[in-house]
């Protein structure tokens, strides 16, 4: 921290304690906050899924009424998608992007804090609905006109997701600028780690997809709360418009959830195979292609809706086509392992699990695109099986692999490998036990989003459902193992040293945990997998040779090495401003102009506090007066 000791009251300078967290602008701390918040929401979402499974364990059960069940499955979906997988990816983006590209922070540190607080308050807002008259109950897709029905509680959904959308949009802009504009000297695009590439693609997807759902939700909100007629068939409104808008967002959204995990796996597999990623360029381009094509397949969620045969055909084709770039990635990952020397560390196990389980989900995805038969599969547990295989077996496996992999980076300690392996195997077993049988129960006719498993279906699918429910028990136990391992290792884990995995990318170049300013000297990059190349060189035939230590070519990060490294100060304004989202949201949901006004006013005050406060004390916001306010030079000339 660069600042002098005298600080203004609203500017916490402590490095520990609550205030230091509320006011932090350090991308690493923000990443850590994201991470722990998603854990809490994951426990909530998991508990909800436990309730669902308990109700469906046997036919004709009445543990939950229809009313409760509908709220629970809706909140389960919303929680897992918007409060767990997306922000968990954001946790990785936050922590890793600056480190991986050799930067000291993200482009807009306070905006970054803002994103986190919006997310937190958005999540609190959504969950408070349970106490305020009932949680949303119109499913995570919120189809109109059901969702605009007065008894649907979907006001919370419409407003809550918009709040979360603000968080994602701000983060997307921030990360895009960071990646494009803050790479260390020499870090060209084709030298960027794949994770950073996938982060870039993901954030572009967010950038372009979030506005679409924002509009869908605005319309829904106006219909629900203010009597507008967007989706009201009585006056000629078209419910199908909502479906298009939702899925225009919704499909890119599923790639938003999977691409970060793909990036993570692309980092771990090479490290644990002791080989570079097979086909780096292909993997990168395939990722970009997935992102791009991902915008053109949305109507495959509407194959049984009111769209005609030409549209159905066109979207069937585009949907199938997306299997090609995905396949490229799968095969490149497998061939990364091929010919390597694999070390089955926990992150590696989860990465292999990812490749294997995701393939299953992907293949069932392709069978969905067989439109005539989609009419049988749609809205059955077969679809539920598909998306849990890609989301849980894919995204979540990948993200967990990342947790194990970068835990030593964040804490300087190792997580227990023994418990990690126990976690992996029980997780794999529990996962397949839970979701494998759903393929069958779905094809045998069990529809999703049904509060009661009808007795007449019971005899054919009851066993499968029982197995699924048993799977959750295994998963819960497994999650507890993980949680114990995590918390225990934070306190008592073995020292990890600087480079526990023999890693390849820049983040391992610096201390673990990294200092506030990440790098004492900004590294100069000369290779893809820069860190590895500082340890080894390759001879002509591709055989590696060790390089003597200390042969680094870093340039001086600062013109004057004695000067303090210039880092932004803490700021409470993002936090203060974001509290306003609570009165703002309640004001809208309950149509209370006072609350709403309070929220807006609060936000404006927060906004002014924010812009008036300089980024760092004494720094007066910008460069000294005599320098023209433009970036002076490109990085290469540095």
């Amino acid at each position, binding site marked *: 921290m660069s600042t002098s000791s005298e600080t203004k009251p609203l500017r916490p300078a402590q490095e520990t304690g609550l205030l230091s967290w509320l006011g932090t602008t350090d991308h690493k701390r923000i990443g850590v906050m994201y991470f722990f918040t998603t854990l809490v929401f994951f426990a909530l979402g998991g508990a909800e899924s436990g309730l669902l499974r308990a109700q469906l364990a046997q036919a004709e059960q009445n543990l939950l009424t229809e009313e409760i069940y509908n709220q629970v499955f809706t909140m389960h979906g919303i929680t897992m998608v918007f409060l767990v997988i997306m922000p968990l990816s954001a946790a990785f983006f936050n922590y890793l992007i600056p480190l991986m590209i050799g930067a*000291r*922070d993200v*482009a*807009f*540190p306070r905006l970054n804090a803002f994103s986190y607080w919006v997310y937190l308050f958005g999540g609190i807002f959504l969950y408070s609905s349970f106490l305020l008259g009932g949680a949303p109950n119109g499913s995570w897709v919120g189809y109109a006109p059901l969702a605009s029905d007065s008894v649907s509680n979907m006001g919370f959904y419409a407003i809550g997701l918009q709040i979360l959308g603000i968080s994602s*949009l701000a983060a*997307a*802009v*921030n990360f*895009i*600028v960071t990646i*494009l*504009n*803050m*790479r260390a000297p020499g*870090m060209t695009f084709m030298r960027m780690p794949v994770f950073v590439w996938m982060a870039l693609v993901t954030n572009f997807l967010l*950038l*372009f997809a979030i*506005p*679409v759902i*924002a*509009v869908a939700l*605005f*319309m829904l909100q*106006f*219909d629900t709360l*203010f*009597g*507008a*007629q*967007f989706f*009201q068939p009585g*006056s*000629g*409104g*078209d419910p199908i*418009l909502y479906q298009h*808008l939702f899925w*225009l967002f919704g499909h890119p959204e599923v790639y938003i959830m999977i691409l970060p995990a793909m990036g993570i796996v692309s980092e771990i597999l090479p490290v644990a195979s002791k080989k570079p990623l097979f086909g780096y360029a292909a993997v990168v381009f395939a990722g970009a292609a997935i992102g791009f094509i991902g915008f053109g397949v949305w109507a495959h969620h509407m194959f049984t809706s009111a769209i005609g045969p030409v549209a159905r055909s066109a979207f069937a084709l585009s949907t199938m086509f997306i299997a090609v770039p995905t396949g490229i990635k799968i095969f490149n990952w497998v061939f990364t392992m091929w010919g390597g020397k694999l070390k089955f560390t926990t992150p590696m196990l989860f990465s292999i699990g990812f490749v294997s389980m995701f393939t299953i989900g992907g293949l069932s995805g392709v069978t969905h695109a067989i439109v005539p038969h989609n009419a049988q599969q749609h809205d059955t547990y077969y679809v539920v099986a598909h998306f849990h295989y890609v989301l849980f077996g894919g995204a979540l496996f990948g993200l967990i692999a990342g947790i194990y992999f970068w835990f030593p980076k964040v804490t300087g300690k190792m997580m227990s490998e023994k418990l990690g392996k126990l976690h992996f195997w029980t997780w794999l077993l529990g996962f397949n036990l839970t979701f494998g049988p759903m393929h069958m129960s779905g094809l045998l006719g069990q529809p999703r989003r049904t509060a009661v498993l009808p007795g007449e279906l019971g005899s054919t699918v009851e066993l499968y459902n029982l197995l699924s429910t048993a799977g959750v028990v295994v998963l819960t136990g497994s999650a507890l193992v993980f949680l114990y391992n995590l918390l225990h290792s934070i306190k008592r884990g073995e020292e990890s040293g600087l480079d526990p995995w023999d890693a390849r990318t820049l983040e391992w170049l610096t201390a673990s945990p990294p200092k506030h300013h990440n790098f004492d000297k*900004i590294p100069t990059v000369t290779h893809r997998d820069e860190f590895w190349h500082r340890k080894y060189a390759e001879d002509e035939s591709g055989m590696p040779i060790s390089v003597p230590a200390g042969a680094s070519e870093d340039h001086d990060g600062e013109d004057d090495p004695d000067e303090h490294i*210039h*880092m*932004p100060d803490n700021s409470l304004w993002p936090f203060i401003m974001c509290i306003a989202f609570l009165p703002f949201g309640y004001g809208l949901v309950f149509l209370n102009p006072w609350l709403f006004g309070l929220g807006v006013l609060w936000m404006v005050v927060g906004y002014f506090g924010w*812009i*008036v406060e300089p*980024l760092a004390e004494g720094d007066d*916001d*910008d*460069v000294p*007066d005599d*320098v*023209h*306010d*433009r*970036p002076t*030079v*490109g*990085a290469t*000339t*540095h």
Partner: protein
Amino acid sequence: MAADVQATTLGLDHRKLAMWTFLGSEFLFFGAFVSAYLLYITTTAGGPGVEIFDIPFTSISSFVLLMSSLTMVLAHNAHAHGDLRRMRLWILATAGQGAVFLGGQVYEFTTFYNEGLNMTQSPFASSFFVLTGFHGLHVFVGILMLLSLYALSLTGKVKANQDVKTEMIGLYWHFVDIIWVVIFTVVYLIPEIAVL
């Protein structure tokens, strides 16, 4: 920003890059509203339709908004030359024109309302009001930003060499103007002609 002192990779200012990035996504936002409007253009549920528009009136307010882009760019130009005094003048002029435009919109909305077009009337009405309303909200936010820029330059928080700040707000302002160029044609003129 942390990296202002550090050179940037592309040699571009973070804030400008961020603004452009954001503006790119705004098309997706307005595009969805415009699509809904086009879909519902004849879905009036027996209420008033596009014939209710008062083209001469809207032309004038559109013209005002268009010209505010000129004053905006002049404000930036003044700032770029370090002339804060003139910059403030042009900023006020821009905000003023924005306010005129908003006033026109308020007037328009009330007239339409009195003539029987309200948001709960029909999908057409909903999509018209929400589309133009959201544009109005953007103008409003723009005015707020202009005013805060004005205030900050008075208190010395915005300095003569910091014309990126004016430029950024300017980008946003021009963008909102561009969107209105599209709305004016697609929402007002073309339907009106097609109906007449």
